[in-house]
Every structure is written in C-alpha cells, then in structure tokens.
C-alpha cells in the first residue's frame, strides 16, 4: 500500500527533514521524492510505502496536517489509489 504526501509552501530550511522524520517515526518508507523550488515557492511530492506503518494511517494523515500548520506549509497525505482512480484507466 502506498500513499502520496504533497507539500506546498514558502521555501525554508529543513522541510524534507521534518517530513522525513515523521515518516521514519511511523515506519513509513520513502520510495520516491520529486521536489522543485520556483521563486521561493517550495513544492514536493513524496511517494511512500505504508504497508508497515506503525500507526493507523488516519493518525499519520493528522500528523502531516499538524506538521504543515506548525510550519506554515500545506501538507496532505492521501492514499495513492485516489490518484490512480482519477487519472489511470
């Protein structure tokens, strides 16, 4: 099972580190990262494996949302299937 973490906001130090730390703490394995900075605007997509996650996925979603609020970023963790359903036939 995989999930997508999206991060959008003003660029600052340590965004990837903070997101990665939460992933590591919950045994969520990062499989792919795609990241760009355009005019101080940070945007990142992270594909993660949640098959061995140590907390309910809903709690992980909440942790990511809180991390976003604390750092003035928009962070969403969503199950990969919603993107596959919408964009792949």
């Amino acid at each position: 099972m995989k999930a997508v973490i999206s991060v959008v906001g003003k660029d600052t130090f340590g965004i990837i580190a903070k997101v990665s730390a939460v992933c590591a703490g919950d045994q969520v394995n990062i499989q792919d990262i795609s990241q760009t900075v355009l005019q101080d605007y940070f945007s990142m997509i992270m594909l993660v494996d949640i098959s061995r996650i140590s907390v309910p996925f809903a709690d992980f979603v909440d942790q990511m949302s809180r991390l976003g609020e604390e750092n003035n970023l928009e962070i969403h963790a969503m199950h990969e299937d919603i993107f596959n359903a919408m964009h792949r036939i």
Partner: protein
Amino acid sequence: MPNRNDIFETINMIREECLDIRTITMGISLFDCQSDDEKRLCNKIYDKIMFHARNLVQTGADIEKEYGIPIINKRVSVTPVSLMCGGVSRDGALAIARTLDKAAHELGINFIGGYGALVQKGFTNGSRTLIDAIPEALATTERLCSSVNVGSTKAGINMDAVALMGKVIRKCADLTANNNAIGCAKLVVFANVPEDNPFMAGAFHGMGEPETVINVGVSGPGVVASAIRRAGDCNLTEIAETIKRTAFKITRVGQLVAKLASERLNVPFGIVDLSLAPTPAVGDSVAYILESIGLEKCGCPGTTAALAMLNDAVKKGGVMASSHVGGLSGAFIPVSEDAGMIEAARCGALSLEKLEAMTAVCSVGLDMIAIPGDTSEAVISGIIADEIAIGVVNNKTTAVRLIPAGNAGDMICFGGLLGEAPVIPVSKYSPEKMISRCGRIPAPLQSLRN
C-alpha cells in the same frame, strides 16, 4: 509514482474547486420487519437499521481521512414506508416516522429517506395512511425525508394523488410556518422515481433492491466550471468534451469510494449516481457552469440548450467511469442550494417558467423553489401536474419540491446545505376546476414499447 501534475490537479479539485462525494447512502429493506403489532413493527425497524448502519458514519469518516476526499453526507434509505402501513393506523405511521428519526439521530447520519409511497396508478390503504401522516411526520421530526411518486410513463398521472399532494404540501407549510416551511424542503413529489437514488429528499430503497446496498452520489460543479474557464475561447463541441473528461474523473472517485465503502461495510455496491449536485458555497454552482459556457445570467435565453449539453456530457463522461450507474444521474438545479441560481432568481433572470423548461433536459425537476406562502392548493397541484407531465411524456424522472413561505421577493433561509431562496412569483390564475376533476391521465403512447 503518479504523475506530478495529476497529483496537484486532484488536490486542487478537492481544495479549491469543492470536489466532494456528496453522499454515501445505505439502502436497507424493511420487508422482514412486518408485524401486526405497531410497537413491535417500530422496534423491528429500529433494530434492523441500527444493526446494518452501525458503522456507516465511521466508515465514511475513515475513507474521507485516508483518501483526502470530503464525504459530505452519510444517509440511510429504507423500503417505502407505505408498504409497511397496510394494517397500520395513522398514529402507527407517525410512530414509524419518529422511529426512523430516532435511528437517524443515534447513528449520526444526516438524513433518512423512504417515508413515502408509490401511487402512480392508485392508492392502497397503506399509502393513504402514510400520505395522510406526512405533514405531521415532517413537522415533528428533523432528519426524516419523504417522497411520493404520482406518475410514470407506464401508468400515466394519478391526478387524485396530484390533487392530494397540493393539500399535503400546503399542510406541511402551515405546520412548519414558524420555521420557514422547512417540512416542505423534506418532501418531494416524483414522476418515474428511481429506486436506487442516493440523494435526498427522494431516496428510498426500491422493491427490487437487495437486502442492503451502498449507493454513492458524486458532486463537483466547481470542478466542471473551472475546467470550462480554463478551456478558454473554444467552440461548444470542445466545451462538451471538456465536461465529459471532467465528469469521468469525478465519477472515478465516486466509484472508488463506493467500492471501498461496500467492502468495508460488507454491503453490496449498488450504483454511482453521476449527478452534478451544487451547494450554496461560492464556486459549487451548476448555474455558474452555465454562465461559464457564456450566459450573462442563468435563466436567460440559451439556458435550456446549455443545460441540455451539460447534462448529456456529464452522463457520457461518467458512464464509462463506473461499473454501475443509476439514481438520478445528471445536473441538479435546486434553486436554494445553488449560489448562482439564488442570484439569478433574485435578480429576475430565472423564473418558474424557465425552470420548468430546464427540467425537461436535466436530471430532476422543480427543486427547492420558494413560492409565495399564500399559494393555493390548486395552484401547487397545477405546478406538480405540469412537471409530472414533462417526466411522464419524456420518459424521464421529474420531481417537485416547493416551499410555500413568505411573499414574492422575500429571502427564505433554510440553513446548511438546503441554503436560501428568494420567493419566486407564481401565476395567480387558478387550475382549480381541472385539478378538482381528479381521475387518471392515461399513459402516453410511448409507454407501449413491447
């Protein structure tokens, strides 16, 4: 890894363009609750609903959280209660209403539907008892919804029922007059009613449905309007293609949610309803879609053609995205629940007559329309008869949900998803003589298809 642009497109649809799943509705058959003791009947209905739907709200919330897609309503629909009322008194019918409402409150669902009857060809004792109880039932409950089917292409129009429903709506309005006639917002009169509709107030669990079923209604007018705006200065064929592509994506999410809910609740998947259902929120309006196609105001000349194209393109896009499509499936035009419709009605661009024309080409009918509080029973019945005739002759579902309250030009506020509506003027000329003739308008020639 999913494509980066696709990921941001999905997130943008949800965060900025109001994409949501409008409802997960669980249908529950009440046939095995039958009893000759009214108290026992109510207890069995309550126990059955509480057992089957006990995890509905939590399951909806879990899916919402994990997949990041808002699921606005969790609802239950039941077997038309008139079928349970054969040997039941009026008090018994009211007790069932209170039972259903109590179950809805305890489950935490938004609405429970099915307090209705199918009388397109005539009344049974049970349907008479039930319809007689509707005004009091809706005035004394909060989450109960009611629907009555008074016509079909196969049966014609039961004008006795049309005349009766004019009185019932009038009585509903009077009993809830101090609450903006809210009872009428929970009552809808149908032609060709679908038996698997997940949307309220018309949802019920049809006679041919399984014991329990999950039906899902999608939404997303804001997504369609944004896609049309992004399409820029193109021709109408390209607009139709844009709508189709967008409807496909929206419906795929509905299919995913329906499949997940069905698996987690261990209840068979019924249908996805492809409807574009607006809310009063800015940016979630079917009227704005029509205006983004190029109308100065919804209701101006050209509106019916634009709506016809929209309705058709939504179906064509959505039907490929779901394994089972059903319910109402098309564009909804409830006036009070659509910011653009409210504005168009308020400024006079949208009249009752134009709305009636629009219902000939969209999925439902005259929906959530406030009319003057002093509108007579006969005029209400006349409006119902016209709308039902459109459905019966065109072999489609039509419906009427009218709220007689206030005076023409007043704003009537219902709150929440029901929104607010300007009171639209109605013709003062009366069809009283025609309505009082009663009888049955015969089924049209197009009913003979065999």
